[in-house]
């Protein structure tokens, strides 16, 4: 379980304040909120790139608040996937294992296994600039999952995909999560993404976590209504 307690982050005029948040092992947790409310700041604080003024982050009973990023075992998938451009797909995925000095034959076994699960076996020798958006996303997922992280932090991972691919990627992530049961914190400003993927949704506004709810409960809140009202004219246009 990941427990975030009394987290306070200050960056110039911006303040992030999360008093209490618990995420269960194996849960797919989505943080939803408009741009600029501090979703990425929260992820970077969890990763250890931003030092909080106050607060603790506890993972399975261990306080990781003062550990450097490399010792937290949290894997980050940024919006543009940040694949290492000078390495092929295999070496990208193997990076975390090589850093951990895993024997080379075991690296090969684990990388091939995750590539097969993510259906990217055929991309092994390709460079990131030879991949499509969807393929890049799968490689980034493979690279993060192969190290068995405590938690996968996904920062708007579908934002750079075209709408058709986004639907495909959502169902792929859902299937993958069902299969591997990893713990994920996924931040997005897209309500469809949040409702489709999230087992629970945390709603953020102005640097604060306003509430945590199931997708069904979230739909009954005024915040969901705001998103739905925004979509209504578009739906009418489609029906017409």
């Amino acid at each position, binding site marked *: 379980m990941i427990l975030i307690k009394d987290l306070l982050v200050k960056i110039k005029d911006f303040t992030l304040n999360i008093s209490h948040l618990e995420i269960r092992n194996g849960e797919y947790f989505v943080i939803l909120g408009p741009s600029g409310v501090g979703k990425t700041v929260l992820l*970077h604080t969890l*990763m*250890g*790139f931003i030092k909080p003024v106050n607060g603790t982050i506890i993972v399975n009973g261990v306080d990781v608040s003062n550990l*450097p*990023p*490399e010792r*937290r*075992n*949290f*894997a*980050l*998938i*940024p919006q*543009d996937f*940040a694949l*290492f*451009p*000078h390495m092929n797909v295999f070496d990208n995925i193997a*990076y*975390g294992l090589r*850093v*951990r000095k895993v024997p080379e034959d075991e690296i090969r076994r684990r990388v091939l296994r995750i590539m097969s699960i993510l259906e990217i076996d055929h991309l092994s020798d390709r460079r990131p600039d030879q991949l499509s958006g969807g393929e890049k996303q799968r490689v980034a997922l493979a*690279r*993060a999952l192969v*190290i068995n*992280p405590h938690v996968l*932090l996904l920062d708007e991972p579908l934002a750079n995909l075209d709408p058709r691919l986004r639907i495909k990627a959502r169902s792929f992530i859902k299937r993958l999560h069902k299969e591997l049961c990893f713990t994920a914190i996924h931040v997005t400003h897209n309500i469809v993404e949040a409702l489709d993927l999230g087992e629970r949704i945390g709603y953020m506004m102005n640097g604060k976590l306003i509430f945590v709810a199931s997708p069904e409960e979230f739909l009954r809140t005024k915040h969901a209504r705001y998103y739905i009202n925004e979509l209504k004219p578009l739906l009418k246009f489609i029906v017409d």
Partner: protein
Amino acid sequence: MLRRVDFLILLLSIISTVGISFIVLPIIALFLLVDPDILVRSFLKEPSLFMEARHAFITTIEASLLSTILLLFLGIPLAYILARMDFPFKSLIEGIIDIPLMIPHTIAGIMILCAYGRRGLLKGLMNTLNISIEDAFLGIVLVMMFVSFPLIVDTIKVGIMAVDPMLEMVARGLGATRFRAFITITLPLSYRSILAGAILAWARALSEVGAILVVAYFPKTANILTLEWLNVYGLKYAVAISIPLVLLALSLFIALRLLVRAK
């Protein structure tokens, strides 16, 4: 309208041709003025002249290479800090790094004497270590490092800034320390800038004469010897000794252009 544009392009082309000719003409002139007889006499028939020239070239190449290697050790960490971190007085430090670009070369030499010379600020330390920079190989290396410092740091800094910091962040999330992320991600992705910085610094070191003249006339570098031969034997001898230096500088320039094109 079309005719006016054509006239403008014609005018700009003429001005540009004058500008390019201004640079190219002295290079061509140098090669045209080479007297083969003097070239043979200075480098083959008179052993003393040949030995003097050979020694000066070896000193120049050794000192410039050593200064470039030392600058890489000093420059890469500094460039990384400047590219990646924000801290108080950062702009001031960036300004200080660029000072050697603005200072007249002879004054740069005097400044080095004031700091590291026999009567300089660090005279106690230099005397204790029994190190002297006046008329010494070390003095030449220090001068070359001083004048090349901004070129190498600024070029590498720009290269590191062009590497997406998110790549390092992802690497650290995957378990790499900051140092390992630098070695495995940032360094390979910015190696062209590092190489370009090193070539620029080396070329700058090769071309230095004013500050070296002040700090260390001996052992003579190729530039000092050129100046000396110009004064003692005249222009034709100076031309003869200039040719190898120009060829070396031009080959460095071509290497740099190829590197930039490869980018």
